């Protein structure tokens, strides 16, 4: 609850030279994968603050993710989906979309790569075989964000559509939904325990949704406002660019164009923490595998078009348990 001004965290040296589209911690180490508009994907070792590798692409890279600790995938605006092998600096094209690829995820459950593109399709790829494409699934609109949990895929597109798929049966969506927020979807992220997803919009608001379609299940959903500022009696609303769930506590951080990072406890509907303001919009967030580190991409997201802005940078801060741990609920019989 308390807002204590703190240092922004350690800044990563050699950041990308243009807008940062996504950052992700590895599931195995403190390596950080960063995709950027400067057409590069970079791999940092956060523990030593060393740039471990760099891959140049044919266009701006809009998303990236890890495969295992030694390889990853990238989604490029030159329509390609690539696989990157870090140790050998090798990259190969898994396949292409008909338009820039907006987002990419790797499913550990099925061993597939899932990509969403502005060509209004979702594609699944096998990263191992030569003919990687497993399937193409048409979406109602351009895909803006994508999230996975277990066998579930949540696809958020333009026009505020949200499709929920089961990876084992991709022939049609398990659920077709409409965003409960009124404005363009910015980011969607599944709860780590798999019961639903959080969805943020360009209008300073986050909706907490549940997969369970029963009345009881749906009655739990709610939305809350965030990343707003009141100035001279007027509400200034900022887009919420990023959501990242804490891997241990299930709490989550949001980052907005106001340059703030907030940490929330979704179960108790409380804000746990607000970090001090970052130089420019928070474009992406990622917790490390043990939740002890939080990487923050402070990078202008062009919400106001091309204008002079602060340099793009990545901060890594160590997370205090107090900042992310849900305030203990009073369990009457914790002894058993």
């Amino acid at each position, binding site marked *: 609850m308390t807002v204590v001004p703190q240092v922004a965290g350690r800044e990563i040296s050699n950041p990308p030279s243009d807008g940062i589209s996504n950052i992700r911690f590895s599931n195995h180490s403190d390596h950080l994968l960063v995709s950027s508009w400067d057409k590069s994907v970079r791999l940092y070792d956060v523990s030593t603050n060393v740039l471990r590798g760099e891959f140049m692409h044919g266009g701006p890279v809009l998303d990236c993710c890890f495969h295992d600790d030694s390889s990853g995938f990238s989604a490029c605006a030159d329509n390609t989906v690539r696989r990157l*092998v870090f140790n050998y600096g090798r990259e190969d094209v898994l396949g292409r979309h008909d338009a820039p690829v907006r987002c990419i995820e790797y499913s550990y459950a099925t061993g597939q790569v899932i990509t969403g593109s502005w060509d209004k399709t979702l594609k699944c790829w096998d990263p*191992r075989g030569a003919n990687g494409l497993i399937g193409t699934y048409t979406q109602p609109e351009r895909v803006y964000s994508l999230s996975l949990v277990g066998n579930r895929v949540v696809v958020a597109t333009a026009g505020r559509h949200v499709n929920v798929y089961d990876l084992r049966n991709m022939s049609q969506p398990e659920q077709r939904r409409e965003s409960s927020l*009124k404005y363009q979807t910015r980011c969607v992220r599944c709860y780590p325990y798999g019961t639903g997803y959080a969805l943020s919009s360009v209008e300073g608001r986050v909706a907490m949704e549940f997969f369970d379609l029963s009345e009881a299940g749906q009655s739990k959903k709610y939305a*809350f406002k965030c990343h707003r500022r009141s100035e001279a009696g007027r509400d*200034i*609303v900022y887009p919420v660019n990023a959501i990242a769930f804490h891997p241990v506590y299930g709490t989550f951080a949001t980052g907005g164009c106001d340059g703030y990072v907030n940490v929330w406890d979704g179960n108790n*509907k409380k*804000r746990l923490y607000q970090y001090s303001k970052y130089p420019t919009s928070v474009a992406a967030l990622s917790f490390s595998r043990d939740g002890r580190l939080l990487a923050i991409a402070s990078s202008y997201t062009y919400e106001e078009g091309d204008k002079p802005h602060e340099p793009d940078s990545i901060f890594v801060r160590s997370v205090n348990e107090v900042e992310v741990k849900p305030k203990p609920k009073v369990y009457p019989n914790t002894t058993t």
Partner: protein
Amino acid sequence: MYNHHNDPPSHMETTCGSLLSELQKIWDEVGEPDVERDTMLLELEQECLEAYRRKVDQANRCRAQMRQAVADSEAELAYLCAALGERPVHIRKFEQSTASLKKELELITPQLDEMRKRKNERRRQFVEILDQIHNISKELCRSTEDNLFTMAIDESDLSLKQLEELQRQSVTLQKEKGDRLKQVLDHLNTLESLCLVLGTDFKHTVSEIHPTLDGSSSTKNISVDTIERLAAAICSLKEVKIQRMQRLQDLATTMVELWCLMDTPIQEQQKFQNVTQNIGASEDEISEPNILSLEFINFAEAEVLRLQQIKSSKIKEVLLKKKLDLEELCRTAHMVAKAHAQDYSVEAVECGALDPSYLLEQIELQISKVKEEAFSRTDILEKIEKWLAACEEECWLEEYNRDDNRYNAGRGTHLILKRAEKARALVNKIPAMVETLTAKARTWEKERGVEFSYDGVRLLSMLEQYSVLKQEKEQERQRQRDQKRLQGLLIAEQEALFGSKPSPTKSGKKVSRPSMGGSYNNRFSLGGAMLQIANAEKIGHSSSILKKSNRVKQQTFQNQSLSSAKRNLDATGLAGKQHSFNSSNTQEIKSAPLRKPLSPVSSALLSNVNIQNGIRTEHEPLKRTPPNSKTPEATPTKEISVVDEEISTPRTMPIPMPPTPSTVSVAMQTAMTPATPCFPLGEDIEFSFEESRFGFVLPKTNLKPLD
């Protein structure tokens, strides 16, 4: 001289006598004195003497010259004879006595001329032959000193012997030249065949050695140097040939191996027939043109590479399949694959860090090992399954026992009762199960010398933990029982005092309930704790089962928590509103109302109202913010405040027109009216920041004005 005037003397004497007598007569007539006459006669006599002496001198000189000439001629003749190696002609000896000098000279001159002619002839021959020798040796590139020696004609020795010598020399040289030429041609032939096989340009190779060798000029350079270079070239080409041959044969061997390995069809093999046909050929057997050219080798190499790639991809496929098999085996046997997993990653194989066939072998080995182990585990595994199932039942039973309404009659209650009965029977068997399992696991471990692990956790420790938990549980139960007994005593006392008996269950219920509904409860129940020991996958599974069984109860709990959630939500919404309304410090506001939900709200009525509010806050505030307004900050605040005041009926609320430009307010109204929230899909298409930055489609009004 006297001979010359054999006839005339008489005449001359007469003339001299007559002249003297004539003079006597004259003098007589003149009467010259005798003295005068004597002087005159003396004078005459002296003049005569003078004339004679002059003539004699002259003749003498002439003779000397003649002798010199003869001597010279003779000397020359002798020299020439010597030079020509002929017997000297001794003319002079016998001539000297007999013939005069002139005759001698006459005799010697033609001989001399003859000799000179012969000498010139001989000299010409010498020059000719020397020229020949010179030319040949030049071709042979003999050393130049040698040349100089033979080149100068020795004028003093032009004998036939010398000539013959020279001729012999010339012949030997010519022979050598022939030999050399033959050698060069041989070399050239060899070179040409080598070049043909290796597919290199013969003319170019040869002209590099010497420009005359490429056949364009009639004479070929045959110097030792050239021959040496030719030999060197042949040698190096041969080396190259052997190298390439070995390379090609290596490739051919690999190719045939790969064909065999992958059953390549004959048609495909046919194309590389000429690669493989030379597999066992020796160096000189390979003579087919271009068979060892770089292109050909590259061609073969490319094929081998292709085959190898196919092979490695096949191996990779097999490897992956095996890996999956192994994982599957491990999973079914509840063994942790990690214990076996080396680095089987495809990357390692791809990059050559590991030999795929070795890996394959390893993985096979492991599969057999795992299979064997799995077989030995089956017996125990079955028991474990049973035990875990029993634990689940125990867990359920425990939950069920806590439900104070369990005996309330309702639909399906009899089934639950039956289940409980069964569960109780099963639970009773658990200690025996645990015992046998422990024994079995012990013997297994003893037999194999390895820990028996179930999904990575040692079974014995699982069992132990379970018993410990059970014990604790038992103690706890004992404690509660004691407490209840005490409470009962107290109540009885009170009853005795006041005559009324409050229900003791209520407090108990409150205590036990919430622990069950929460998402983390499983860990507080015995079975759940047990299951948690198993790996994560397992947890998800079992918890879902638990949930199913607890569905009814959870539902009720959810309702309860829901209302509180709604309350909270309302509070946050309220906080936001106040925030905009008061425009005061964030910190303060956020902290104040958020604490609210923690304060007790007992009234059911209030919670009902709050639920409504909650629903409203979910949707209504969104409608308030105008979607198309360029300056949204200007208007919404007031509105929000209005809504805040009229909590119950948001839909019918009056909208006071804010003091803003009319265009803005119009935009706002359009935002307000639509019943279905699909306004962003109006006539203008929406774009994300990324799309507009990338210029994905011509952006129109892509940016939603937000601040």
